């Protein structure tokens, strides 16, 4: 079971690195919003793997909170991004 968790964490880590690459490269700020949303989901995934590994349910409210905040952040960033690029 430990090997499974190691493989899962490596895959999620590589996915997060790829999303961070897109976050840095852009090219538009909307690309960055999308990439940041993916990073938030991967954070949820990693926290879920932690919960599964330690069988510790006390971190699960954290998952709900991160999901909520990530949604608000992405929507706000999407609206502000289009407004700023229009003035360019």
């Amino acid at each position, binding site marked *: 079971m430990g090997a499974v968790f190691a493989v899962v964490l490596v*895959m999620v880590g590589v996915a997060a690195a790829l999303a961070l690459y897109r976050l840095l490269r852009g090219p538009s700020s909307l690309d960055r919003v999308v990439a940041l949303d*993916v990073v938030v989901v991967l954070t949820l995934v990693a926290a879920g793997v932690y919960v599964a590994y330690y069988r510790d349910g006390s971190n699960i409210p954290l*998952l709900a909170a991160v999901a909520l905040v990530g949604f608000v952040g992405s929507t706000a960033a999407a609206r502000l991004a289009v407004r700023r690029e229009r003035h360019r």
Partner: protein
Amino acid sequence: MNPVAAGPVADVVSAVLMLFGALSCLLGAIGLVRLPDLPARLQAATKPQTLGLSLILLGTALRVELASAVTLVLVVLFQVITAPVISQLVGRAAYRSGGFPDDTLVVDELAEHLPADAVVGDEPDADRHGRD
């Protein structure tokens, strides 16, 4: 503490679910880097990530007690509801700021609803005709 499911079978099912979930997340992230333009990347960013999160949290839910598992189902439900909202908002913002190359669109139904003189990417009046 009583897990939702115990025993070697539950462990194997949980491990398989988590492996497929992580694979889905990884494929989505590869698509995010490799695909050529924003609408294509939106596909890679929302659907595989939602599927991956659902599978991983389902695998997690098998290993924790029932009350925690119910909260995990809520998290999945919330993600399933909000991912299309973010995708739609970002897609619309991209369309309005000229992020969609014209030649990649097969059908452009939104153009019929915008003012005739509005140019995609340069439409200062568009907001006054309706909320976006």
